[in-house]
């Protein structure tokens, strides 16, 4: 798998997901996001990693 163009950097991934949340909050009604660590994910491939990131 060619991973060029994406990063496993946790701070970047968390910042990206937080950006979704902030934008969703501005909608009326607010939009919620469900993050799913796919088993074939490039960097996050365990379900438990979803909860680690959503806790931040």
């Amino acid at each position, binding site marked *: 798998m060619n991973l060029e163009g994406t990063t496993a950097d946790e701070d970047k991934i968390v910042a990206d997901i937080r950006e979704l949340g902030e934008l969703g909050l501005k909608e009326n009604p607010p*939009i919620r996001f*469900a993050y799913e660590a796919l088993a074939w994910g*490039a960097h996050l491939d365990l379900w438990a990693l979803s909860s680690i990131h959503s806790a931040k």
Partner: protein
Amino acid sequence: MTCTAVLTEVGRAWVHELDVKIPEAGKAGFQGIEVFWEDLVYAAKRFDSAATETSEGPILQAAKWVRELCDKEGLEIFVLQPFMNYDGLLDPKAHDLMIKKLHLWFKIAKVLGTEMIQVPSQVLNFVYLEFTSFVFDLDFTFR
């Protein structure tokens, strides 16, 4: 307990159309469905045969059609998914394109009457966001 039918897992968009899948989900006793982007983009071609995944008007028309089909069956729409290949993009332009796409998804979610978007973890190089180049690659591989 809430039971959801995942539309694309009921059959890929180009094999089973939504006006078949949604009534079947209703008859089978499901309370709601998860709407797949693939199904919406495919259904958009009903309204404009040249529609692609950036054709806002036809996709919104498809979303309205899906909402009406669900209303007939008394089905809720729990989530719109998958907002793919978003997280961890290193190219700021690629990231900005995804944020632009997100704003279309917000509009679609409102028409569908859902308040949730599912985001899967990054799976591929952003180059593969270009669906046509992906199809081209496959076509080339099998020639």
